[in-house]
């Protein structure tokens, strides 16, 4: 079972097309192993991205250096999944 300890999900809000392009560049950097839940498309649409623990700091630094606004949607993904699993186990009982 794959675990997601330390993975964060960020909600990124772009304010112009240039920032959208920066996110599309980020999307193409395969070594970061980002999982875009909502892909960058237009500045009006927020972007949600799951970031493995090892890439969190790099991605945040990238966003901050380009003045791109973001908030943390999920602080630690594994915590959410553990809670979900507990809920299912409780319901099954």
């Amino acid at each position: 079972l794959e675990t997601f300890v330390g993975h964060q999900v960020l909600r990124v809000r772009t304010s112009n097309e240039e920032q959208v392009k920066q996110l599309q560049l980020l999307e193409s950097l395969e070594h970061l192993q980002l999982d875009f839940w909502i892909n960058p498309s237009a500045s009006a649409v927020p972007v949600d991205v799951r970031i493995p623990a090892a890439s969190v700091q790099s991605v945040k630094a990238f966003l901050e250096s380009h003045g791109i606004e973001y908030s943390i949607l999920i602080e630690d993904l594994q915590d959410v999944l553990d809670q979900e699993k507990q809920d299912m186990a409780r319901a099954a009982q």
Partner: protein
Amino acid sequence: RQRGTGFDFGTYHTLEDIYAELDHLASEYSFVEKIQIGQSYEKRPLYVLKFSTGGSNRPAIWLDAGIHSREWVTQASALWIANKIASDYGTDASVTSLLDHMDLFLLPVANPDGFVYTHTSNRMWRKTRSKIPGSVCYGVDPNRNWDAGFGGPGASKNPCSDSYHGPSANSEVEVRSVVDFIKSHGNFKAFLTLHSYSQLLMYPYGYKCTRPADYAELESLGRSAANAIKSLYGTTFQVGPICTTIYMAGGTTIDWTYANGVKYSFSLELRDTGRYAFLLPSSHILPTATETWPALLDIMVHVLEHPY
């Protein structure tokens, strides 16, 4: 016969439990039948609930959920909706009128391999589980695999991508099974597909940014349905064509259905709390399903009242 098996519609379930509940619904209601329309890549059955009160090849409405396996609230909502339709027939005027004139087909788990994989191996999995020849990666995005603008913008040609369109249109047996079923039936008037999340109610096109011929009616109906959603808990849905509402995306389900004559083709992205994305806690299943239902009913009643 005693009603109920203690099935809790407000929690998440395994595929086995969901399929058992389909059996239960089919045994409980005489107008509900479980039919198999194919099997997945890993040989799991693709089950559809058919709601029919009689007649032969009546005009029909299609509803599916879970084509992106990790969006668990959609499969859970579909089950609640199945139970709602079955239990409301004979008591709710709209549902009764609908099923007295039309058939309804509901596919609650459109991607069973992916769904099982989310339970057993990787909760983040969204694609099918087919082996891609020549690649170490598995799976195709089944919402980029339809024969409408296949391979166009908004889909990836990289087999390792979550939006990989697949080697060819209909390469995924899960997609092909639905295509074959819709074509062989030949009388579908509406096609509604449930996704999560981001609170969108979309209609064609996705592969191109031009308005469909039925733009005015689809837009108006979409807005009416969105208002129906809002009426319960105030959840706001954005309405519009896929291309301009989110992004250009080739090979999507409703582009294919619309191109094949199903005028009322809609894709819904269910609620987003702004905290959990598609990992919606189970406490949100019932609110999500109950707020989605009036919108679906609104569309279905419109379809009934506007034959074509």
